């Protein structure tokens, strides 16, 4: 905006202001109604949705799948969508930081005097694209399903092992059949690549981002064996 446009805006604004109503009581009245609505909605949500409290935090378990508050779903989903390890840093830190900086300096990028939304197509389209992208990622994150369920059919002797795998949090990173995420390699046919001993060794001594399953072996060796049997049984011909 140049000096003339600034002056034009200020003149138009002072006219609009002189034709307006005082802040008290007109705007204050509307604000008060809104405050009442906000309070009512909060209490209604508190009464009907409650405040659940899960099991106590246990830093020694590796079997819990983390899930953030819904308004961080889009960040988690961004992490899931981006697969190549070289780009993960871009997804977790890069994109949100760039978006935030753009948002922060928006008034210094968009300096045109035009204010009507229909006459600012670039601004409106990019805003709409951002909202759609965030809403889509949030929705996908919300629908990602319980990360503790494996639908892939399995032989009856491995069913207990499947349950252990489901509750052990494997799906947080690995894909088994249709379920799970793609941070780590898929386990659907892992039996083709690894023997039973190799699976057990990987669980005890995994490569960097994967948690160790030593505690499961110590506290419940039977469950650990079933888990290893199940994972080793995941072969392509079945």
């Amino acid at each position, binding site marked *: 905006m140049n000096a003339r446009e600034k002056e034009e805006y200020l003149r138009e604004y002072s006219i609009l202001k002189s034709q307006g109503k005082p802040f008290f009581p007109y*705007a204050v009245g509307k604000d008060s109604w809104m405050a009442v609505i906000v309070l009512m909605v909060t209490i209604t949500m508190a009464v009907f949705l409650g405040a659940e409290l899960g099991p106590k935090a246990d830093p020694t378990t590796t079997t819990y799948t983390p899930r953030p508050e819904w308004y961080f779903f889009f960040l988690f989903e961004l992490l899931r969508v981006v697969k190549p390890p070289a780009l993960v840093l871009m997804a977790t830190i890069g994109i949100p930081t760039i978006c935030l900086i753009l948002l922060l300096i928006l008034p210094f990028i968009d300096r045109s005097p035009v204010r009507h939304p229909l006459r600012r197509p670039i601004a409106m389209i990019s805003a709409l694209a951002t909202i759609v992208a965030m809403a889509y990622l949030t929705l996908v994150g919300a629908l990602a399903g319980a990360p503790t369920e494996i639908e892939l059919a399995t032989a009856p002797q491995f069913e207990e092992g499947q349950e252990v795998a489901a509750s052990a949090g494997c799906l947080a990173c690995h894909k088994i059949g249709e379920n799970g995420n793609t941070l780590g390699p898929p386990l659907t046919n892992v039996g083709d690549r690894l023997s039973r001993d190799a699976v057990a060794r990987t669980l005890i001594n995994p490569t960097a981002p994967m948690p160790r399953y030593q505690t499961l072996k110590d506290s419940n060796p039977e469950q650990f064996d079933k888990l290893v049997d199940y994972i080793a049984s995941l072969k392509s011909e079945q």
Partner: protein
Amino acid sequence: MKLPSPPLPKFLRPTPPRPGDGNGDGADRSAGNGDGSTTTAPEPKKLDKARGAAVEGTASVVGYLDERTGMSPFLRGFLYRKTPKGNTWYYTLGSATMFAFVSQAVTGIFLAMYYTPDASRAYDSVSHLTNEVFLGELVRGMHRWGSTIMIILIFLHMARVFVFGAYKYPREINWVIGVVLLVLTLAMGFTGYLLPFDQRSFWATVVGVNINASAPVMGPYIADFLRGGAEFGAATLPRFYAIHMLLLPVLIGALIGAHLYLVSKLGTTAPPWVKGEKKNISEEAI
């Protein structure tokens, strides 16, 4: 000083005097006959006296305070400043966000009365608060869902400002303050999520801090600061508690003050499709 009457719904407003009414009181007319008005005649006098005393008392208190604080020009300027034409319900989103923050502060104070920021006792204190304390679950629920409502409102408020082009001259600085407030509110959500210290919140926070740690240059330092060391430990929970309870609320409160100061100084924008009437332009020219 005459106050403008509050915006009452139609059925509560006093009937305006009609031409031809003797004493101009609508209530007397509905009584139906002349007797009613003669018997009630002395009453308004008493009422007037009481009203006069009340007005005088208020005026002397206001005068006392004003003499010592000099607040009245500021308050008059703040309350009776004109808002531009076309002031719609969209303009309540900002104040609604602030109200959600106030509600979070109040419920948060009550939660803090029962909460123990200690890794070994936090979960039990929350469980006691939820299951045994009178109205504990309601207040915790209000705080938990209040955060969701505040996030939604802050995004709606931002969308309104964006669509109306209200971030443009002369309100650029207020937009920047608003974005910082958005980030601080999200940080509130992140730090508060750990406090119940159940499995869900613990592991989500571990992952969140690890994502932070992967950031270049500053990342590891921020993560170490949040954890109070290289690992999640006894120091972590009190740290999140202090950030959630002291650091962020003070910052948010101060920035809301700055935000409001600029709003009252610069005024709210009019919707961009509202135009001033031509008649007044010519009046201005004269």
